[in-house]
């Protein structure tokens, strides 16, 4: 977690990933589509991959879809496509490809907790952590699909306006979905 600049009049803490938005380079700075694509891939490949996994894609498929997203970005840039908000563009493509893949494969989404990396360390702490994760996963899966998507995109650092573009909904709907999802999770996890 990182504290927002006091100069902004804020002292609340925000997820670090949210603040990463400003670090995404303006596409106007790099003219070469290949360099720009490589740069965005370097910055966003992990968030995109994690989002795809959170939607229920298998790791191997999520890896392929991640590559496809950025290759499509390269073609988009090379054909002089709109270069505004490329992170939102990549996530929107990733979202659509994931939905297509889930429809095409016709299998139930994979539970991301099954792929959790074992952090090692104290076995008792690991067990507690695993139990907490399991409860959180169960609670998230019980949420409406739209709230889950908003929550996952927010966890990957997207701003509300970017989430709105990815999912094709209004910003106020995003805020409401995030609030309802967090409130529901808070009730579930603290019961």
């Amino acid at each position, binding site marked *: 977690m990182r504290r927002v600049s006091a100069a902004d*009049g*804020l002292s609340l803490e925000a997820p670090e990933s949210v603040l990463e938005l400003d670090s995404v380079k303006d596409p106007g700075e790099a003219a070469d589509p290949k360099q720009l694509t490589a740069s965005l891939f370097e910055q966003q490949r992990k968030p995109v991959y994690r989002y795809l996994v959170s939607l229920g894609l298998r790791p191997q498929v999520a890896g392929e879809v991640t590559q496809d997203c950025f290759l499509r970005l390269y073609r988009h840039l090379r054909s002089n496509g709109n270069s505004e908000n490329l992170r939102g563009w990549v996530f929107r493509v990733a979202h659509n490809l994931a939905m297509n893949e889930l429809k095409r494969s016709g299998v139930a989404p994979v539970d991301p*907790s099954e792929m959790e990396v074992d952090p090692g360390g104290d076995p008792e702490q690991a067990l507690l952590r695993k139990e907490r994760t399991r409860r959180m996963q169960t609670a998230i899966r019980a949420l409406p699909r739209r709230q889950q998507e908003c929550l996952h995109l927010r966890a990957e650092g997207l701003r509300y306006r970017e989430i709105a573009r990815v999912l094709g909904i209004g910003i106020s709907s995003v*805020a409401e979905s995030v609030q309802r999802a967090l409130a529901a999770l808070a009730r579930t996890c603290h019961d």
Partner: protein
Amino acid sequence: MTKFSENCLPDLRLVQALDGELPAAEAWRVQLHVETCESCRARLDGLRSVSSGVTELHQVALPPEVTGRFAARLAEEGSEQHLEPGWRGWLARPLPLAARLAWCGGLTILILGGLILWTTHPRPGAAVRPVARRQQPAMAAAPKEFVNDIPAARLRRPRHSAKRSVRQQHVASQTPAVAREIATPFFTLPFSDAALPLDEATMIRVELPRSALELAGLPVDEDRRNQRVRADLILGVDGLARAIRFVE
């Protein structure tokens, strides 16, 4: 358990403040309120805790081979232009200069050839109407007997079934029924060329108003003036009518 007063902020405002989605002034007001309101502070802490928990769930490691494979695919994509499958991809395929020139040359020859053929080839169907228009003053001018004895073998057989060559006509004239069909001899038309290449001439049958007989100096029954009468036209290679005769 903390009390929820009517001054407490709604969850939506707290979440927006947590996510940095409020304007600076509004965020500052939320901050001031949270510092003094135990209930809102507790709810904000709860939301923050859940938010952190969700973020922790996303700690899935990216397989290292994805990065390497993407670099290779991007390099491959950059070296050769990505082509769409199908005819669009075929059209977008880059061609060497010589091949482009050959394509352009071939296309030009094709277009010019088609244009020349179109302008020089006779079009029988297109010539019927102008002939029908022009024959009236022609016959009125000076009808004279013409090609009753055209060698049948020198006339070209027409493509359309309605057209009959002079040979066909000659053979048909041997039978009494067809012989009765012919009512007048052929009359030349004023733009007829004496050097008409008869090998290329064709004969077609058309229908005209009976009043056309009057223009040829033939009597016309007033009661039947609006009826149609059939006529044989001999067309030159240029598509113009050279002679005409009326048939019953």
